[in-house]
């Protein structure tokens, strides 16, 4: 169960961008509190308090007691708008929630036992496909995190949602068996695999050429003769593509 945090808020009287900008100029972050069939309430919060909570993982999975002029409103953060350059919060949305409300929340995923994963110990890289998983759950039982153990995972293995033990009473929003993370081969291993595949291809083409020459009655070609141009072709092609000028079509 996620912890409940408290944020102090002040009411705003006017809606719109002018009023929101005025709130920002006054050193506040404008926001709105809505839901439960009641009219929306315009609020503003202290940027330092808000930023402190935003810097902790799983902000959208934590219930917020919004202290508005002495009245506490139980809410769930639904959206935060950031400045694209500075990443400072510009606006925040809160949804009123009551006991028994079912909500969709993004719960952060935490990976444990990375040191006991043979794949990671061999240099594999944990490729996290989903840093957060959208879950449908009651407000009282929002998990603060989903813990996934990587114990025993090899390079090439994947963690799917069906392999993850979700907390009681929760279910993912997506019906399909999506991938949460995988353990990818390190770049060095991938390069070795590519080199091995290229060598195998070159050897096979050399063998084919030798067999064809033997069938034609010629002297068999040296083993490396066919491989050399094949190996040299790739960099040459890459260099040609890399040095090409912008498309010179008429």
């Amino acid at each position, binding site marked *: 169960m996620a912890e409940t945090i408290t944020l102090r808020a002040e009411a705003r009287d006017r809606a719109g961008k002018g009023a929101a900008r005025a709130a920002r100029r006054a050193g506040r972050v404008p926001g709105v509190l809505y839901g439960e069939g009641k009219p929306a309430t315009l609020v503003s919060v202290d940027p330092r308090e808000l930023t402190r909570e*935003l*810097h*902790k*993982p799983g*902000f959208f999975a934590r219930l917020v007691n919004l202290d508005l002029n002495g009245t506490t409103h139980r809410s769930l953060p639904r959206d*935060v708008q*950031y*400045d*694209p*350059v500075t*990443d400072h919060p510009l606006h925040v949305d809160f949804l009123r929630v009551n006991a028994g409300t079912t909500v969709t929340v993004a719960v*952060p995923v935490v990976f444990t036992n990375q040191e006991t994963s043979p794949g990671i110990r061999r*240099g594999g*890289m*944990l*490729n*996290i496909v989903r*840093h957060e998983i959208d879950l449908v759950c009651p407000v009282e039982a929002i998990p603060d995190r989903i813990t996934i153990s990587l114990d025993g995972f090899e390079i090439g293995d994947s963690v799917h949602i069906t392999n993850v033990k979700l907390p009681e009473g929760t279910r993912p929003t997506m019906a399909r068996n999506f991938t949460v993370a995988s353990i*990818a081969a*390190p*770049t*060095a291993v991938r*390069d070795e695999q590519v080199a091995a595949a290229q060598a195998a291809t070159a050897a096979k083409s050399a063998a084919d050429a030798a067999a064809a020459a033997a069938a034609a009655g010629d002297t068999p070609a040296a083993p490396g003769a066919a491989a050399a141009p094949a190996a040299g072709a790739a960099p040459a092609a890459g260099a040609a593509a*890399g040095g*090409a*000028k*912008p*498309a*010179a*079509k008429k």
Partner: protein
Amino acid sequence: MFQPARTKYRKAHKGRVHGKAKGGTTLNFGNFGMKATEPGRVTAREIEAARRAITRHIKRVGRVWIRIFPDVPVSRKPAEVRMGSGKGTPEFWIARVKPGRIMFELDGVPHQLAHEAFALAAAKLSVSVRTVTRVGEGGEP
């Protein structure tokens, strides 16, 4: 170097880079990112130089994502040519970058190594940048 496989038109207007980035402003793949803080035109050579600086510093562990693509051709006239007689020939490709745009992402490396790699890469770029970190990895949102 990056360049489009084919283009609809061979030459493009110069244009100006106004405003802040509308998309591509948050980390999508890795735990660390390099965010532009000023507008500019980043050439394909700069992107490749920055990519090499990052991959060489992290010694081929981890993973790098490039979030910009140079799809705008830039033309030049030859030296000592009088003005007029049409637009010059396309010479290189650039990506128009607005402030806030995540240009590179990195994952699978420690915090310190990522910052060092981005500092080396930033020296290859013509726009000023800053490093951003995913929440929970000790950084900003």
